[in-house]
């Protein structure tokens, strides 16, 4: 069993999106707590933001396997 440096690169690339997605859902929870009736609208915005922020981590894993 041996490792690969490219996978460590994926780990590093996941830090940014991890923080970003955390911030997005923190804001979403805040918004719903303050204004429960806006939940439906906020949900689709939150998922859109989550999907866009996640793209960077996905680039990371794709490139990790390309270069491994």
């Amino acid at each position, binding site marked *: *069993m041996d490792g690969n440096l490219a996978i460590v690169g994926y780990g590093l690339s996941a830090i940014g999106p991890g923080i970003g997605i955390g911030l997005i859902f923190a804001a979403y929870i805040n918004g719903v707590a303050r204004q429960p009736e806006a939940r439906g609208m906020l949900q689709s915005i939150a998922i*859109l933001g989550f999907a866009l922020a996640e793209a960077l981590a*996905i680039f990371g894993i794709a490139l990790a396997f390309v270069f491994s």
Partner: protein
Amino acid sequence: MSLRVLAAAGETFEAPSAETFWQPLIGSGAFAITRPAIVYALSVVLIAAVLLWATKRLAVVPGKRQMTVEAVYGLVRNGLARDIIGSHDFLKFVPLLFSLFTLILVNNLFGIIPPIQYPTMSRIAFPLALTLFVFVVYHFVGIKRKGLGGYFKSMVPAGLPTWIVPLVFLLELLTFFVTRPVTLALRLFGNMFAGHIILVLFILGAEYMLLHGGIALKLVSIPTFLMAFVLTVFELLVEFLQAYVFTMLAATYIAGSLADEH
């Protein structure tokens, strides 16, 4: 310590890699009939059969089966298409979005349904083909609505200082033609691939520790199996979410091409 125990057991543990997903059944090379191809065909047959069966006897007051299908249809039609594209011209995109959603959802769910257990979208070709279709559609409707010149002009928001317009145009061109299709395909692929490889790793690892390890490793394999179970439930969530996200982004891109102003 664990590595030494594994080595002492004789065979070494082989971690799953990208090659694990290449499973040709008939033939070899580029034209082999692979396991995902069979699963994909199965999903199409399954969706068609379920939809035909559920809508055979349509009624104004829906029965149980019609109600179930209508719930999914309503989610795509009202929750995605109408809210994002807008009530004026969302209707002609509903068939495309509904097909995308059901196809991706069923294929993703096949990743954890026991006898099949292969997420088709973990091979890049499948999300790439779907993305290519969405790519052509959103450019086509944009050009048809605004004309070729108008379409490119609409990429740059109005009211910018003149010197910054070429720069923004270049960035928007990159967004429309490279970033959007690449991220759309890679997001679905990456999620299904990474999720499935983690499941394979946990289950194979637990199996290896149970069969080849010493007494301590046999005990460790129990929480590993439990973790595999928990991750399977997590995968279920990711599978729904990714089908939803892919459809939502397709609708967003179409809406962006149709919008009058930027």
